[in-house]
């Protein structure tokens, strides 16, 4: 039989329903692929026993005609989703040994619909990072080979410190790497400033951050609560649509989760985009943008024009302020959310001479350098005398950013097309070691979307001169993920599916 891990999620679903493939076979094939790919470090925990038990139940449900929409489909779960009785650490040392007694709403929706859990996926610590290098469990390697390197060289690097291999992006680096390396059919991810879309763009996969409030945040380890949102990474636009339908939906346990019906997103794949108005924001043409990104963007415009869309120039004048404002809002909320890690209720405790020293020692040892930096920035911008100058000002700027989008949508724009990232993937150990801001610039095109609470999807649209995947981003109206799926599927179709790397690991 052919390698069933190469199927898309939709193809696997159809094969299971046609009973030409069993959930146990499909799951075992993924577990075997995971065992061979441990060097990539995409999974921080494999759950083979649980996976096979879930798959067996799925096979019984398929046989009895009671299959759910994701029945028997093996998925990976980002380590920030609480999974009952299973390692949940947001890849931080401070949550050592934490096994929640509850299940996140999003993952419980997936299991309700029949999905199979393969394991927990690596990520930047507390989702703070753009390269998956801040994980306590070590960096994740992208399955894409660096330019001018072969498999033999890469295998050696994988066994060593991984330097020179490519990052999969972050923070959902484990999710993106696992999906691109065919170690799951799809994965849950989360996005606070670009953490779904940037890794998807870096690995030639598709990722959608839905509108704030579309998915419940309950049971997700919190980073910045007004920005965090769950979403999937998968190999096709259709696969993302299938997953999002299950992940989304009302939850009384999250007061910011909206009570509105979840559309059948898959039905929007292939729907005509004739007459749709696509906005091209001039502010995204940033200084020093590589020519290949410019070309990718122009190609995207041409694809959509050919499909009958109307292209209009728009202006989002506050774009430039989004990233610095984000680095006030997100650390401020993080410093508050992460106050709970005090060495008392869960995880790590490092003793001290009194309770204050115990807190300080625990948090010094438990948080990595990037997380400590962000907590400190947050504590600073919220501290007496600076609150108005920083935090309140940033929240006002957020209003201005949102108004920019509202004005564009009021002119009849249905979706906005931009590059997803300012470059292709870079190497492990290459960025941010001297200046943290260098790493932050990765999110320059994605962060505006979180600040405005809008949906955004990254879809592969071409390759760099070095043969690495590049993605385009589509930004939609609030709760209009359907248009994003329609338009993204046109780009996917026109650009041709990216040929993901063959295993060298």
């Amino acid at each position, binding site marked *: 039989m052919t390698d069933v891990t190469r199927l898309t999620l939709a193809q696997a679903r159809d094969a299971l329903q046609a009973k030409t493939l069993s959930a146990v076979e499909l799951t075992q094939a993924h577990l075997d692929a995971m065992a061979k790919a441990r060097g990539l470090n995409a999974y921080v925990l494999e759950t083979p026993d649980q996976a096979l038990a879930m798959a067996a139940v799925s096979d019984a449900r398929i046989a009895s005609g009671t299959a759910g929409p994701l029945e028997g489909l093996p998925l990976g779960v980002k380590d920030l989703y609480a999974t009952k009785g299973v390692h949940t650490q947001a890849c931080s040392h401070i949550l050592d040994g934490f096994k929640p007694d509850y299940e996140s709403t999003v993952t419980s929706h997936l299991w309700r619909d029949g999905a199979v859990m393969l394991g927990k996926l690596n990520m930047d610590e507390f989702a703070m990072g753009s390269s998956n290098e801040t994980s306590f469990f070590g960096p994740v390697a992208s399955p894409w080979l660096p330019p001018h390197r072969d498999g033999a060289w890469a295998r050696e690097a994988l066994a060593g410190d991984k330097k020179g291999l490519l990052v999969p992006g972050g923070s959902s680096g484990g999710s993106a790497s696992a999906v691109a390396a065919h170690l799951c059919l799809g994965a849950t991810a989360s996005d606070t400033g670009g953490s779904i879309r940037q890794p998807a763009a870096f690995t030639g996969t598709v990722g959608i951050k839905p509108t704030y409030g579309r998915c419940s945040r309950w049971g997700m380890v919190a980073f910045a609560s007004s920005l965090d949102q769950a979403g999937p990474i998968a190999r096709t636009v259709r696969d993302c649509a299938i997953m999002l339908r299950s992940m989304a939906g009302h939850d009384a346990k999250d007061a910011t989760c909206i009570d509105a019906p979840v559309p059948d997103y898959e039905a929007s794949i292939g729907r005509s985009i004739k007459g749709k108005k696509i906005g091209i924001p001039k502010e995204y043409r940033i200084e020093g943008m590589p020519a290949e990104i410019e070309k990718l963007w122009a190609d995207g415009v041409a694809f959509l024009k050919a499909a009958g869309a109307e292209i209009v120039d728009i202006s989002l004048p506050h774009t430039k302020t989004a990233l610095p404002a984000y680095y006030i809002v997100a650390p401020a909320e993080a410093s508050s959310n992460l106050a709970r890690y005090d060495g008392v209720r869960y995880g790590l405790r490092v003793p001290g001479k009194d309770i204050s020293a115990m807190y300080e020692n625990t*948090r010094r040892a438990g948080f990595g350098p990037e997380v400590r930096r962000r907590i400190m920035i947050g504590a600073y911008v919220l501290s007496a005398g600076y609150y108005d100058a920083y935090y309140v000002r940033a929240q*006002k700027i957020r209003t201005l950013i949102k108004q920019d989008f509202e004005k564009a949508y009021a002119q009849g724009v249905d979706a906005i097309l931009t590059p997803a990232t300012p470059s292709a993937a870079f190497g492990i150990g290459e960025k941010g070691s001297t200046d943290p801001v260098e790493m932050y610039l990765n999110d320059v095109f994605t962060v505006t979307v979180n600040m405005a609470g809008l949906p955004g999807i990254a879809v592969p649209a071409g390759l760099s001169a070095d043969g690495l995947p590049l993605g385009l981003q589509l930004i939609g109206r609030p709760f209009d993920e359907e248009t994003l799926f329609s338009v993204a599927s046109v780009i996917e179709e026109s650009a041709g599916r990216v040929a993901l790397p063959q295993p060298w690991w």
Partner: protein
Amino acid sequence: MSVDQATVRRIAHLARIAVSEEEVPHLQQELNAILSFIEELSAVDVEGVEPMTSVVPMKMVWRKDAVTDHAGADVVVANAPDSEDGFFTVPKVVE
């Protein structure tokens, strides 16, 4: 705006993160890099702009004031680094 070394120590204490004396200069440099990056916001005209409170307009929901979580003390303390008889333990805080 930039921070001096005394401010770095004060912020670290506010954040309840121990820092060693050797770490302070490096941390100061990193924090100042971030602060200078966010400094450009001071040029933005925010006169008369309402600060954002909710990114998506939504009605605040109410729920019954009822016990919803009664897993029991054993479950609640199960992940604690140290506990006794269903209680979290901490170093002595009163004399």
